[in-house]
């Protein structure tokens, strides 16, 4: 893909394309820091996770290149195909998938695990955006219902895998796309009302009245699991406590790379995956944490900017959807480690260990960069 005179690459956004690499690099360092002592104690290579994550990065970059090569308007016109393609994966994982960390959402592919719910997020955004683009001028109640159904079916299948976090991500990004697509204020009001009522009902009817709102979500997550409500409850509390201690320990300047106490003692569960931000917080301090949040801010700004620059409505909706995915995941994940959001298994984009999430993130950025660089053609 040489940048010839006619190539759309001339208009590519270098900031948008460079940021994933910068954040992923930091992510590798943090994964190494959080897992090396634990792996060594278990008699394994200290680079076990780093190596696997690096492999996922390479696959992600290849996937992004492929996405960039295809004009996003062809993807736009194929949206039903994109959507229908992920449904068998979601159903298949329910039938044959492996249970992992309470969620039955993985395919075992040789030594690798593949988690279809990750790519579903992007597929739903493409589908809802494609559908709304098609009916861009008359999004009445009936059309809205179809749009909701597109998101709803995918959400239901993901929720059946006990993966509440991803369900919420799909909910938020579909909602964002629908809002920007022209959802009428009255419909927005009705949808918000339905949501509030559902949450309220859970509080009022359940034994959970005494719990804080963040724990309600936690409660739902656990009761949707099969048999370990009590242990997971204490597990969540424990995770949160250790996570906060780690971040508090960091202070302004951090304890220094590879010197985090909580990190080296492996006190934070799932630290290389969902709680990766605690490593940044502890070892690199406020300085490092704020820098990372700043990098994400930059990324989100470039996505937002693309939404405005897009030459067509689909491009705007696609960028908004991807923007919503990233913004929500970043806020939920970092917020969770600092105790202002409930604990759900949502990865921090480009940082958390996890191949499906990394590849999906690259594809999502690739789609938006695609919209961006083809804005004049």
């Amino acid at each position, binding site marked *: 893909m040489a940048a010839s005179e006619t190539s759309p690459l001339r208009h590519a956004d270098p900031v948008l394309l460079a940021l994933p690499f910068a954040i992923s690099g930091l992510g590798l360092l943090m994964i190494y820091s959080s897992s090396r002592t*634990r792996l060594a*104690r278990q*008699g394994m290579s200290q680079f076990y996770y780093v190596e696997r994550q690096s492999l996922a990065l390479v696959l992600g970059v290849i996937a992004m290149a492929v996405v960039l090569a295809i004009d996003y308007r062809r993807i736009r016109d194929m949206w039903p195909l994109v959507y229908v393609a992920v449904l068998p994966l979601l159903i298949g994982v329910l039938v044959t998938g492996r*249970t992992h960390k309470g969620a039955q959402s993985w395919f075992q592919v040789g030594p690798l695990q593949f988690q279809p719910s990750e790519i579903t997020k992007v597929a739903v955004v493409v589908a809802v955006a494609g559908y709304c683009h098609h009916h861009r001028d008359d999004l009445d109640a009936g059309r809205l219902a179809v749009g909701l159904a597109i998101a709803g079916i995918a959400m239901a299948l993901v929720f059946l895998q006990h993966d509440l976090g991803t369900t919420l991500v799909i909910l938020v990004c579909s909602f964002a796309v629908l809002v920007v697509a022209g959802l009428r204020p009255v419909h927005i009001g009705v949808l918000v009302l339905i949501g509030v009522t559902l949450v309220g009902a859970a509080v009022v009817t359940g034994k959970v009245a005494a719990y804080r709102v963040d724990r309600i979500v936690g409660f739902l997550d656990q009761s949707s699991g099969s048999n370990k409500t009590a242990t997971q409850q204490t597990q969540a509390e424990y995770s949160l406590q250790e996570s906060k201690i780690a971040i*508090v320990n960091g202070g302004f300047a951090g304890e220094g790379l590879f010197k985090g106490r909580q990190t080296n003692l492996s006190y934070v569960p799932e630290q290389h995956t969902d709680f990766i931000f605690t490593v940044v917080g502890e070892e690199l301090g406020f300085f490092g944490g704020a820098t990372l*949040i700043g990098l994400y801010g930059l990324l989100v700004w470039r996505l*937002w900017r693309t939404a*405005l620059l897009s030459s067509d409505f689909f491009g705007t909706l696609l960028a*908004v959807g991807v923007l919503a995915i990233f913004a929500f995941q970043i806020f939920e994940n970092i917020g969770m480690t600092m105790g202002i959001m409930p604990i759900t298994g949502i990865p921090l984009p480009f940082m958390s260990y996890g191949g499906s999430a990394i590849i999906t993130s690259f594809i999502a950025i690739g789609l938006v960069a695609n919209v961006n660089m083809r804005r004049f053609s």
Partner: protein
Amino acid sequence: MSDNSRVRVSIVGVVIVALFSTLLVRLWFLQSGPEDSLKVQAVLDSTSVIQTPTPRGEIKDRNGVVLVRDRASWAVTIDRDLSKRSSDKVIGQLAELLHLKIEQLRSQYLSDRQSLLQPAIVALDVSQPDRLEILQDPQNYPGVRVKALTVREYPRGSLAAQVLGYVGEVPSADLPRLKKLHYGPGDDIGLAGAEYAFESQLRGRPRRETISVDPTGAQVGEPVKIDTGAVGNSVYLTIDSNVQRAAEKALAEGILGARGLQNTDLASTGLVNFTAPAGSVVVLDAQDGSVAALASNPTYPLEDWVGGISTANYAAITNPASNFPLVNRATQGLYAPGSTFKLVTSLAMTKDRVRGIGDYYTDVGKFSVGGTTFRNAKDEQFGPVNLQQALTVSSDAYFYTVGNDFWNIWDRGDHRRGLGIQSEARDLGFGARTGIELDENDGRVPDPAWKSAYAHANYKTAKAKKENSVWYPGDNILSAVGQGDVVVTPLQLANAYAAFANGGTLWRPHIEDHVVDARGKVVATTKAKAIRHLTFDPNVSATILAGLQGSVDQSKGTANAAFQGFPFNLFPIAGKTGTAQVNGKGDTSLFAAIFTANGKQYVAVAVVEQAGFGAQTAAPIVRNIIESMTGQHPGIVHVIDANNNPHD
């Protein structure tokens, strides 16, 4: 793009700016809150010591053959504080993952041979994929940990099991005493055999790190002080693994063979075979007291102790029905020596001039005194015999009368000379521990003082105490033939024969040859230590030796049936059978032999419980070992049927 859309995208932007600002503010408050930081800082003032065991030293035989060594093993442990339901679930999941039986895992988990303060070790040698599965899925395996252990490994299997012994967790009762040596709960310590005897050499020095800790006990920063510790030294034993293997093989075959022999003592009650439940063998270098082999049967799998023995396995090897395989019968077993004790009586009677080597005694098959008749085995009559012949044919009557003569001297008031058999026995090491590094028993040489003390301790009335205190002629007569209250360990018997063989030095038997440190430098060498030196009249020694040689190579010799076809011209042997009667049980079969192999003089002793005449079981076992040590490549042990006319 419509203005409406533009507005809506802008609203999304505003929401996002708000969210990111929230994150930054929250991060700022968490990380710059002065109280929280102070809280963490204030607690960094206590220290604690982390101790890691260093690899334990190896145990090798005299030629450097490794008998015990350490190897790394990845173990799976389960925490102790799990509820029954959780532990059941976890055990089930582990059984599936590791392809082990649920009962096996549960038995390990519940084993009371493991410290209750430490997570229970349930599986060893867990592969990396399995470890990874557990590590990646902590919520599916609550309370399960993976831990690197060093465990004992036995390249030669259970060879010399009772000599080597085993390691296990420090018994809690010993913890206070061992604390200053830095033993903690769950630490390994030698519990038996060489592992126990040479603990201080084998253990090395554990690595100790002094660290700062916070209130949760978590380490803060780098260790304050590090003692790197030292790997344990390796101990070379005097045991020769080839001889040991030959001895264990011969013993096991002899025992099996004896169980196929009919016990003619019980012929009246029907056809009954010997039970031969147990036995032992000692092979001792007569020139310095170093032990070449110590075999004890039944034995046990050393492997069972690795990583903490399971309750089931421990119950199995301590069950009386399995005849106490943990006991080293060669050093701890107590047996009436029977006629093998006639060596002592022979030396005593010549030294105290009770009977000369050339004096003839006419054996009529029995001897009566004070209304009691003492009979030869099978009531055999040997006619006139001198000392040499009496030993060859093992004339009991000859030695009964020697015992009686001694008693008369004692009775006349010459207590020193009258107790000549007893003092000779003590000089030859009977009645006292030999001083070997392993657990052993004293044995007993009965005399009037012992009998009186025993009676006073065990009888209630003054009358009974007095009556049972009397030193009767029968006491001395039975002692003279190694019966009555005389009991010895097989090692004591071998050591006494070694002292006779080497011309009078009673060595302290030992199994430690030398000790080398981790760099291979010899740090200690065991020197042969003499317990005492005895003086034998050369003529007497020659006569006794001739008598003992006759017992194997002459047709009248008691052990001759067991040595048919043996090349005595190439490998001269002197030996003595013993057949000790035991109340209510079959006879103990004993044999002691003096021989030369590879230019060294050895004594070999075999003792088999409830296995008939000495010549039937013990002598064939010793023959097999001698053949093996002299390069004759023996087949299996051929025990001797009673109809083949062995006697004594």
